[in-house]
């Protein structure tokens, strides 16, 4: 149990929709080790986001329990869940969801407000994180002056601000082009490898999902017994001829297409 970052037992989630009950999740049991890099995959409506919301303490299951870093968070009163989210969980979103009126470093500092860290400590930590994601020269920029990839990097740094037990990423590459998807997933992989951060990525994209160590599949709210190992390497290919290319290539070596 101590090595487990996250564990769920027999999770069910039921919604009432127009008078009838809808079962969004059914008997979902997962164990995630510390340092795992996991992707949860499935088609639209499979229950991925519902599961992510429960794992992230944004929602509670109808039945079942969730253990986060050894603590049963299902029993925590709703008014105290924000403490779990602040200290144990880091979020990433498809649309980045940075505060547009704050610059990069201020966005990264935001989750640290209300903690015991002083202003100086918060700034120092934010700078370190932004350097880690390769944005040390863009810390004063507001989101509208950053590219989509850069915004998502800021979001990664923000998610790591309070040293969370897990990072939950909901379609983190959904709004990015192929090259930037690759870069972001490579960055997440690097953080996982070097920092030991436990990362859970929810995605419908096979290529993105395969970047993780483990791939879980959801369908109709049920976890499929089949679990795959990820390839660790997310290949970047030429859109014309399909030959593998490198992130820094400007021309395809196979067909000469300008990239």
């Amino acid at each position: 149990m101590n090595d487990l970052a996250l564990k769920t037992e027999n999770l069910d989630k039921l919604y009432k929709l127009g008078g009838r009950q809808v079962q969004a999740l059914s008997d979902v049991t997962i164990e995630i080790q510390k340092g795992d890099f996991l992707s949860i995959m499935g088609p639209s409506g499979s229950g991925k986001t519902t599961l992510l919301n429960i794992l992230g303490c944004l929602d509670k299951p109808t039945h079942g329990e969730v253990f986060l870093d050894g603590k049963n968070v299902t029993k925590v009163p709703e008014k105290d869940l924000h403490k779990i989210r602040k200290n144990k969980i880091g979020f990433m979103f498809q649309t980045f969801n940075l505060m547009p009126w704050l610059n990069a470093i201020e966005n990264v500092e935001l989750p640290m407000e209300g903690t015991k860290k002083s202003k100086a400590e918060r700034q120092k930590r934010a700078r370190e994180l932004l350097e880690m994601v390769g944005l040390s020269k863009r810390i004063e920029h507001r989101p509208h002056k950053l590219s989509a990839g850069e915004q998502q990097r800021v979001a990664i740094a923000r998610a790591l601000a309070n040293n969370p037990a897990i990072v939950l990423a909901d379609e983190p590459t959904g709004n990015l082009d192929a090259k930037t998807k690759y870069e972001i997933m490579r960055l997440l992989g690097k953080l996982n490898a070097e920092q030991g951060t436990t990362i859970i990525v929810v995605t419908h994209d096979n290529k993105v999902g395969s970047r993780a160590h483990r791939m879980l599949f959801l369908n109709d709210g049920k976890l499929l017994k089949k679990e795959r190992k990820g390839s660790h390497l997310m290949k970047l290919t030429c859109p014309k001829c399909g030959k593998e290319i490198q992130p820094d290539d400007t021309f395809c070596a196979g067909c000469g297409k300008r990239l």
Partner: protein
Amino acid sequence: MKNLGVFTRALRNVSRRKIRALLVIIALSLSVAILISIPTGIMANQEAAEQLSANYDSYLENMETEITTAATLLEVSLSPGFAAAGFGGGGPPEGGFGGGGFTGGFMSRESFFNETAVSNITTIEGVAAVIPVLEKSEGTLETRSTQFGEFEFLRPEYTIVGVPLDDSILSNYPVLPSEIIEGRTLVEGDSGVVLLSVNNTEYFGVGVNDQINILGSDFTVVGVYSTTVTQEMTNLYMSLSEAQEITELEGEISRLDVYAENEDVIDEVSNDITAMYAEFYVNTAESRLEAITTMAERQVDILEDAEADLVETQAVAYMEIGIAVVATSLIVLFTMLYTVRERTQEIGVLKAIGFSNGNIMSQFMLEGMFLSIVAGLVGVIIGMVGAPIITQLLLTGLSASNSGPEQAFTGRQIGIPGLTVEASIATPTVELLLIVFAGAVLLGIIGSLYPAWQASKTSPMEALRRE
């Protein structure tokens, strides 16, 4: 220092939507300015009404005293005087219905007759003294429409009053004003000198010992008098002969103040004068008292109407205050509700990254408060500067005539016929400014309460679903 972030965030969020914030501040500050101006106007109005009432009481007292002390006076002139002028005669004379003291008289100031009447009336049995007086007003002619028709009125700037400077008259009869506030009164033998009223000194811009030019002739000011009687407020006294000379009315006078030997012979003397001069009107103490009583009753009615107006005005004013209070809260409420709705996803993100319901609520409450503070300060400034103007737009005040920029809280002189008072210019007190400012901030907080609570209760999961 941990909580500094909340303030900074709230301030930044308010300044994110600059135009919206500006519009809200303008609307709120106008409400605040109204909340300052109306009570200020009401206070000024009340002060003026109280002063008017006090002046009226002392005015009536003076009148009755003067009538009693001049019980033996008969005023003789070619004009019908107050009684006829005020009731179906030639219309109201300029400046009200008079009620002036006996130095001013009730008579029109523009009808003249030969002073040979003095010696003739002196011969009537029972007559103790006959004092000729010349009164001539100088000013501008105006045409006015009244309930009685169209009339040409002389808007007097000052009135020359010539009286005989004879010691036997000056020492026995109230020919000149009694309340000298500076210098001295006129005495027997005076020549080339004048006695001015306070109003005259302001009009001519002179004081005691200064030179003054009247109708081309130079005079020295020897004294200044004070009076509460409207009819006397612009009188300028000099010797009768000099008055006749400068007005080119040599040998002419406008009235005779005839004193009977005693009260018992008044009627006889009055009849003898009328028999001698059929064209003359004779005003006795009795008729003056009767006129005064009628005027007093009318003035009481007017005062009561004015008080009723004031109560009604105040009721309207309090209603306007109520509307301003409600409007202030509603402006903040709807603005913040819209803001919360607009920022639902942002609220979801903040909750997802660990902000508590309390944090969220504090932030939105602070935003509402910042708007109110800024609006309160702006409103206080507008209220301080614009109270007289705003009050004029929103309060009808007592019935009066406009009398110039130095008059009254609304630019008006509050008055009733024969008696006016200068109301104080509406100036908000420091206490009122502080109370209204604090009230505005409180209303802003109250208006923000529900939206802030709603924001704090937003489900992060549902909020994040919104685009």
